């Protein structure tokens, strides 16, 4: 009887899976060690109510592709929704994006890029946003940056305080790989958007 048979097939499979998992962790950690997910917030001049341009930087094309797949999926959802107008009840006003659309976008994106960020935390982030305006969103040619336009319902001081902290806490507690959120501008420069 071979040594493998003595150990039992289940044990061999477990050991193999364990080693494979270690390998994945090692490779993943090496790959993502320097992956910085940057969120930069700039004042959107002319806005009177918390509209802000958020530049999301993606260090790898892999991250960017996740973002765009999420974006396209949401766009498809919206398009389908638009094509199915009810006959008796017609809504005459609509946001470009709803909170749940945004939640979906971030869920897909974050879970893709960051692997398993807690959905509850993400929902907290998304709750703070009223809607996302993506019609002007675009990629920046020649870079891995995408510019998205967000509108949210909380003052920017609270945005900085609650949302990004929430993101940081969420990532710090739940993430498998080290990921850092960077806010480029100091708080006092963010404040104008409160008006």
């Amino acid at each position: 009887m071979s040594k493998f048979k003595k150990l039992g097939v289940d044990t061999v499979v477990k050991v193999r899976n364990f080693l494979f998992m270690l390998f994945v962790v090692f490779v993943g950690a090496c790959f993502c060690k320097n992956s910085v997910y940057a969120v930069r917030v700039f004042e959107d001049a002319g806005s009177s109510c918390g509209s802000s341009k958020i530049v999301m930087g993606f260090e790898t094309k892999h991250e960017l592709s996740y973002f765009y797949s999420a974006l396209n999926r949401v766009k498809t959802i919206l398009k389908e929704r638009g094509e199915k107008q009810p006959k008796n009840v017609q809504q005459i006003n609509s946001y470009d994006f709803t909170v749940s659309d945004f939640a979906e976008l971030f869920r897909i994106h974050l879970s893709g890029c960051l692997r398993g960020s807690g959905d509850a935390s993400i929902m907290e982030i998304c709750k703070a946003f009223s809607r996302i305006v993506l019609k002007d969103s675009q990629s920046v040619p020649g870079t891995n940056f995408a510019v998205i336009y967000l509108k949210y319902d909380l003052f920017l001081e609270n945005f900085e305080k609650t949302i990004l902290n929430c993101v940081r806490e969420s990532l710090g507690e739940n993430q498998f790989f080290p990921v850092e959120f960077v806010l480029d501008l100091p708080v006092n420069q963010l404040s104008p958007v409160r008006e």
Partner: protein
Amino acid sequence: MIHKYRFRNTNFVIDGNSGAIHIVDDISYDILDYLDGNFFDYTEEYIVKKLSDKYSREKIKEAYGEIFKMYKSGKLFSEDIHESLATEENLNSPIKSVCLNVAHDCNMQCKYCFASKGDFGCGRELMALETAKKAVDFVIKNSGGIHNLEMDFFGGEPLMNFEVVKETVKYARSLEKKYNKNFRFTITTNGILLDDEKIDFINSEMFDVVLSLDGRKEINDKYRVTRGGVGTYDMVVPKFQKLVAARGDKSYYARGTYTKDNINFSDDVLHMYSLGFKHISMEPALCGDKFESSINEKYLDGVLKEQENLCNKLIDIKLSGKNIDFFNFNIDINEGPCILKRLKGCGCGNDYVAVTPNGDIYSCHQVVGEEKFKMGNINENTFDAKLKKPFLSMTIYHKEKCRDCWAKFYCSGGCAAKNHFNCGNIMNSYDLACKMQKKKIECSVAYQYFV
């Protein structure tokens, strides 16, 4: 909660908590009479039974299905999820707007004037430049990181203290770069003292200008008179027209007040339009028993009908391809103010204060002279931020009459000063104003839809 109404043979349904606005057919409109946001297995059959005399079973089931779908997607009978945001921490804001009463004096004696003919009952006085400068310093100091600051030159008649207005603007501009601020100035004037110099100054420095005029000559001249009792229409209209002609694309409003004597105020709006004013606003004189000319319950039905009448006229003008902008029907049905703004309302006593000529700081220009609303004094360098507290607790969730009102996210609880003067408390809601406000919202939504 939902609100439904008909306008121009169209059925509107507003879902207050989500802000979703729907146009529904007659059958859906009728079905909504039997729904209160509680959907049970037997609800559909119940409605079929109720409406079977009027519509076929299939039609009812189809419409009910669509309503149910809207309900499930949070666009009808949606939940109010915003109450947790109504905290002092969220609503407490730096000061960003100041009403600068540079003149507690007026060269007119409008009979409905809330400011006691210009002096607010505090005695006639003009603001000294030093006080105005300290007010500029005050708002910069207390504005935190807010970039855009608003300063409204008000009175009385602010042009009676024009030199101080000019120098204050100059002073504020000199500080903008240093403190990374941008001042947006507004002036409200009766027009008597307007001349070329003042028009040039206003058009170059004022972000917005409010031109007080009540409409038709006979209406205007009944209430808007000089100290000698002479009507002012002929004096001010040419000056206003000159200012507007030179103003280009910059914002302005010809602003009127209607009283019990011109319940047919749509004629006054259209008259101002015929004078060449494209941006117009019109507000009721709601002074309770203070003035005989004030709108009261007796005139309510007439006012509500006239609001609809005006809305219809404005829609016709817009649909004919002409340009008119009626401030009171301006509503952004797609986005609008953020939720915190909707919760806290105008921001009086919080991000907005008024400063009088002697430097007193009040929570709002309408309560100047009311000792309980005095928050400090610019010249004495006092400002009691604790006095903000009642205004931070003045949200729609703290007001009993507002909590379950479909219009709460549109009116934000109404005007605190009106509530104070007419109900004795800023936490009460002035029923008359509420009814007029609701009609205004209905008209605004319909106006936005049709044009």
